[in-house]
């Protein structure tokens, strides 16, 4: 997601579209990216830690973006 203070014209344009549809309650839209990763790890914690590392080093640019790791679910490798 764009950090607080980072201009997000894409989010603004989307908000404009929502307002055109009549959703006048929309105060603000921030546009970001969502990645789904499948990580092979011994435990969920380890997978989360790897995901954090990847998000910091490549998936996000800390100068302009923040990230959250939403959920880590365990799955059998097919």
């Amino acid at each position, binding site marked *: 997601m764009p950090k607080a*203070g*980072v*201009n997000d*014209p*894409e989010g603004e*344009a989307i908000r404009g579209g929502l307002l055109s549809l009549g959703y006048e309650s929309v105060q603000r839209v921030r546009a970001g990216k969502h990645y789904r990763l499948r990580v092979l790890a011994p435990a969920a914690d380890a997978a989360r830690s790897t995901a954090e590392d990847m998000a910091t080093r*490549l*998936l996000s*640019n800390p*100068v*302009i973006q923040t990230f959250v790791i939403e959920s880590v679910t365990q799955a059998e490798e097919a």
Partner: protein
Amino acid sequence: MSSQIGVITFPGSNGDQDSFDAFALNLGVPTRMVDYREADLSGLAAIVLPGGFSYGDHLRCGAIARFAPAMESLKSFADAGGPVLGLCNGFQVLTEAHLLPGALLRNESLRFHCRWVDIRVETTRTAWTHEVTHGEVLKLPVAHGEGAYFADEETLDKLEANDQIVFRYCEPGGTVTPDANFNGSLRSIAGVCNERGNVVGMMPHPERASDPMLGTTDGLKILSSALEYLNVGV
């Protein structure tokens, strides 16, 4: 010292041949195309990262290019004081590689801008602005969708204090106005340098303004500055 200029080509670069021609044909200096897989950059006196859409701009503009073998060597080259110039996508690559501060965001208008702009030279201390004068206005083309310069306030203040802002978008007469800042760059920044001044990134394209046939040769002053900096002559 070698006087050969290196132009690194990434998959998706499209300004590499323009950059090569500007140096090789318009300035007449030995120039070499460097493949992004090359790790040996010895023998190069200066390196240019060209414009384009390296790796299809996937993830973020310039984000993947920094992992190329040539970029590892470029980092050592820059650390040793070698002149590096990032043009447009090359500027984006340099910020993603942490060789320059800040980042380039989507243009405020959300539109791709392909047009002529005027930029004012803010410092002549860099490797790439030796041949221009402070306050001089250069007319150069831009062609980008993500060129809005961003850095946090603290970094911007530091850039001002350290004389790291190299170019600002301005009116033809040299006045910096909100109107001239077509892409929404913070403090109208069109180009910055590292603290040492050997690494410069800019959104406008000097290589596309390097022959009278192209409308102006203003860009040559930037490209040839490094040669003077290196004392290799033109």
